[in-house]
């Protein structure tokens, strides 16, 4: 046999009839969310309250996922512990005010189109600002400390402090109110259950981000390269790809996603503070540890679990609410020390 002539490039789909051994699907982590929700129903007692708590938990989970997804990819691909990720959340939220405050008329208008337009514009601006900031952050702060975890923690935390102080310098030390657009306010009533409109929007945006990330990571070459890079960056380079460019791209995308999360979180809280990013970071880190460092699917599941547990605990045992996330993390790590969906690393 000799080497074939290389002719027209086609993507083959070999067929075969032999039965392949089935790969068991790891369903257990996926079942945690419905099992938890169903277990809580009798404890909560009231179905409408349970629905409200569950939707609130899902909405909060989606917003945390948006903020955490970039961080988990950055850690998985670049092995960088970015403790400054919260800076992008804060900066994103404050950057949105550059649009939302001057266009207050659009925000207060009783028009879905104007409200969506102004929020969409604010999100674009926030993601652009945080994307550019992420690029600069990677170049100036992260790049000199690749492979040095302790220095990464110190310098990225320092970066976050600087970013928070810069926010204070630019926007002042006072809290800034960020009103929800008019048509996003209020609640929809399903039977006896009241569900805030904005929470449904947050769930929709979170799901859209997750589906987009899933498709990019599984259906595109860049996504395959990211997944391959998470597992073995050196081999990706040996195949002829410049993983440094991939690093920068993922860092910028992760920063922009944190910016999006910051806008969503800011609108949810309706108040902005420079420290809002650093305050949410504890929860973000718990989420990516529970999910499995580097795993986007695990991050999604972890975010939903953390938020649901926080909401249910806050309702059932308020005094335990603050510790609920830590207890959840301990329980998950005792079960699966690498997180719900461990990422294979070389």
């Amino acid at each position, binding site marked *: 046999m*000799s080497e074939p*002539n*290389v002719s027209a*490039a086609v993507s083959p789909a070999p067929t075969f009839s*032999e039965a392949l051994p089935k*790969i068991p699907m790891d369903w257990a982590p996926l079942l945690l969310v419905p099992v938890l929700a169903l277990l809580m129903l009798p404890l909560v007692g009231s179905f409408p309250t349970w629905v409200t708590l569950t939707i609130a938990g899902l909405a909060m989970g989606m917003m945390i996922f948006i903020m955490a997804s970039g961080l988990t990819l950055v850690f998985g691909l670049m092995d960088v512990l970015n403790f400054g990720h919260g800076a992008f959340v804060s900066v994103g939220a404050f950057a949105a005010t550059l649009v939302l405050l001057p266009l207050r008329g659009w925000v207060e208008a009783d028009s879905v189109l104007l409200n969506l337009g102004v929020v969409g514009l604010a999100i674009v601006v926030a993601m652009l600002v945080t994307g550019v900031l992420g690029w600069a952050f990677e170049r100036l702060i992260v790049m000199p400390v690749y492979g040095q975890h302790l220095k990464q923690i110190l310098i990225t935390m320092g970066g976050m402090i600087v970013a928070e102080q810069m926010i204070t310098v630019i926007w002042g030390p006072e809290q800034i109110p960020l009103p929800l657009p008019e048509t996003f306010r209020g609640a929809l009533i399903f039977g006896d259950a009241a569900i805030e409109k904005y929470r449904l929007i947050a769930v929709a945006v979170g799901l859209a981000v997750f589906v987009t990330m899933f498709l990019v990571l599984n259906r595109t*070459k860049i996504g395959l390269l990211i997944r391959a890079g998470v597992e073995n960056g050196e*081999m990706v380079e040996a*195949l002829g790809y*410049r993983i440094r460019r991939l690093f920068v791209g993922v860092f910028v995308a992760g920063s922009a996603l944190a910016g999006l999360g910051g806008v969503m979180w800011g609108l949810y809280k309706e108040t902005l503070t420079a420290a809002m990013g650093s305050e949410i970071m504890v929860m973000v880190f718990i989420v990516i540890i529970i999910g499995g460092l580097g795993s986007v699917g695990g991050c999604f599941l972890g975010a939903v679990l953390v938020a649901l547990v926080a909401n249910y605990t806050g309702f059932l045992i308020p005094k335990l609410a603050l510790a609920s996330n830590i207890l959840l993390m301990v329980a998950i790590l005792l079960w699966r020390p690498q997180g719900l969906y461990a990422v294979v690393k070389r």
Partner: protein
Amino acid sequence: MSELLLELSGVHTHIGQYHILQGVDLAVPKGGLTVLLGRNGAGKTTTLRTIMGLWQASAGSVRFEGRDIAAVKTPDIAQAGIAYVPESMAIFSDLTVRENLYLAARQGEMDEKRLDWIFGFFPALKKFWNYPAGNLSGGQKQMVAIARAIVEPRKLILIDEPTKGLAPAIIQGMIAAFKELKATDTTILLVEQNFNFVRSLGDTVAVMDDGRVVHAGTMAELSEDRDLQQKLLGLSMDAHQ
């Protein structure tokens, strides 16, 4: 002597405080299979990684097609036509066999005829085409690693101990595969400790010890000279038959 595709001259490589390669001189003729022999720790893997740019040479030159690539980045070395199959295989276990090969096909899509050619000597790859590579056996993973290196024509393939830990039946399949590769005039630099495996395949041979090449010649010459085998390798190849 045939034209050289790769030539290392006085290459030194440090890894941290350790001085691993201490002046390696190695010539790899074009179109042949050169075997790099030596005991564990002699510097064989470091030599391959230095050629690939994964570890930078601290001194000396690595000339590929006449151009010094000692300071060139790994992606550029790969794009120049050098493929690398590490000892660990380094397959992407989360990706399917198809996706592993797809990433190696930098031109974009994979060529169907070339894939059929690869399936000819690695039929398991066709069977497990859409299967996660991490679920394959060790031998099948090695097939993925080698297929990834040859899914597009390369000028030089660096392969590090491909038979390590594999069953004899799979090693026979590897021998057939390498004979196929040799028939395509692909230049191969193969690190191996399985003497029988390389004896039937190698054209030229270099033996390393303590970070240097201590012997270079033809495989036929080394195969026939038991005294030389004893001297260089500490044992006769016949003992491994």
